[in-house]
């Protein structure tokens, strides 16, 4: 008699066997790829105008916010515009993984009720979609940067680790919020307010250095603050960002990822009952 391939027993609260979980997740990596592809195709991002919209949308957004800056803050310059676009585009990478992630588990209800698979694939797919939407805006930014004559330097390569930290943070946020949404379905309705607040608390419409000393607390409580600051330093000013900012961003990302993933993994076997 062979040994059983699978054994299902009552689960105690806690994590599944991580090695097995990872193997099972890795063997399904094509799902993540295909899911993101179909999702993007369904949103028409495989057509010329769909792609164009991916570029036009952030451009229009940055134009609107630029007008806002001019009206509220008075005169401004092209470097300010470069800072705005660079930060805004990166911010939307995080915001899109949040909005995509929040309903990823609840929308996969039919799949969850009928197939056994690592549920974490769903928020991961949401992140991958957000990354695909981000990539064209990166090209747009580089064009803007060339037009406004901002310097291209070797220090800009610092943007790569900053981007990786951002993706890590976005992943943690997507996993966390998708799990929360299973238990509190109205989180999805609060989300627009949350992202909007996060937008204003982040150094996007203003430079990090312009922040009044009395408002410095924002720096500490907003996980995006150090990342966006570093990103702007590397991408816009072409300088090496402060290591402390990057480490602070990494600490946020790691913390959110581990706490969110712990909750997700220890509760995902219950999702089928909750949906």
């Amino acid at each position, binding site marked *: *008699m*062979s040994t*059983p*391939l*699978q*054994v*299902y*027993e*009552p*689960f105690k609260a806690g994590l599944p066997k991580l090695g097995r979980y990872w193997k*099972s997740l890795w*063997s*399904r990596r*094509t*799902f993540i790829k*295909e*899911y993101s592809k*179909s*999702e993007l*195709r*369904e949103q028409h991002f495989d057509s010329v105008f769909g792609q164009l919209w991916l570029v036009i949308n952030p451009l229009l957004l940055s134009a609107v916010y630029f007008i806002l800056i001019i009206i509220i803050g008075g005169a401004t310059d092209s470097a300010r515009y470069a800072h705005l676009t660079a930060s805004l585009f990166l911010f939307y990478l995080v915001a899109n993984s949040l909005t995509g992630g929040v309903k990823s588990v609840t*929308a*996969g*209800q*039919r*799949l*969850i*009720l*009928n*197939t*056994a*698979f*690592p549920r974490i*694939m769903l928020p991961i797919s949401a992140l991958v979609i957000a990354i695909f939407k981000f990539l064209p805006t990166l090209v747009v930014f580089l064009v803007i940067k060339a037009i406004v004559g901002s310097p291209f330097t070797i220090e800009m390569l610092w943007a790569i680790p900053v981007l990786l930290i951002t993706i890590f943070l976005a992943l943690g946020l997507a996993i966390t919020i998708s799990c929360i949404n*299973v*238990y*509190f*379905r*109205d*989180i999805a309705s*609060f989300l627009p307010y949350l992202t909007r607040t996060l937008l204003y608390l982040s150094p996007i419409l203003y430079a990090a250095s312009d922040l009044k000393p009395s408002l410095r607390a924002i720096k500490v409580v907003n996980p995006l603050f150090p990342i966006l600051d570093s990103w702007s330093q590397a991408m816009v000013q072409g300088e090496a960002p402060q290591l402390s900012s990057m480490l602070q961003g990494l600490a946020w990302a790691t913390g959110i990822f581990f706490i969110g993933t712990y909750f997700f993994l220890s509760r995902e*076997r219950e999702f*089928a*009952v*909750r949906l």
Partner: protein
Amino acid sequence: MSSLSVSNAHLTNELAVSIRGVGLTYTTSIDKKPTLKARAKSLGRGKKQTRVVRALDDINLDIQYGHVLGVIGTNGAGKSSLMRCVAGILPPSQGRIEVYGSVSTLLALGVGFNPSMSGRDNVFLGGLAAGMSREEIAGNFDEIAEFSELGDAIDAPMRTYSSGMYARLAFSVAATVKPDILIIDEALSTGDARFKEKSLNRIKELRTEDRALILVSHALATIEDICNEVIWLDKGKMMARGNPAEVIAAYREYMHVRKSASSDEDV
């Protein structure tokens, strides 16, 4: 969670699934949807309003290869819960389930989880989630599409499908992917007479020596025709198990239904 492709030859009467003392309880909230608002409103009003559902109670069952097990019972008897436990979707609250082979869940119903995507995308995504490779699905896809008789509609978004089309695609997926242990949960109940006939024949073809089949249905005549063992669940408890004719007769008597046309009609 092994891939469906791991299909070893199994001997008839070799154990496929062993279910030992399995119980399943869960708590459902009385509120329609769990929300933060509802939680905040009920703060300070004592305990959260919940209901404990005992879906399965001390189920013991062995399923062997080469056998076809029928599962009958009223709505809410725990049939689907038991199937979900076997498929590893719901962890049992008590007991232990051992599975000796690859299980296709009602893969079937997982198809179409995203109504705005086409039937083709849904079949691929459902298969990939179940652990199949792209190539495996592509290799089976033509057969699935042909069996479902959907024609060009396979590339239309699934929200445009009728319930019959849904069911046809679902059954085609379940019947084409050839796992060691195949669970078919009510996937047969829609579709026109001709398609029912066709699916019934397919199930008979799938009844091979090295596969275990579990069929959940309200169509008692079909169960009696196809299965060589039947279990009857009621309120989470196993009421009877054994020869199809006897168990079904007992069930009919319990339900006070005569052998009428309405209980036999659906496949």
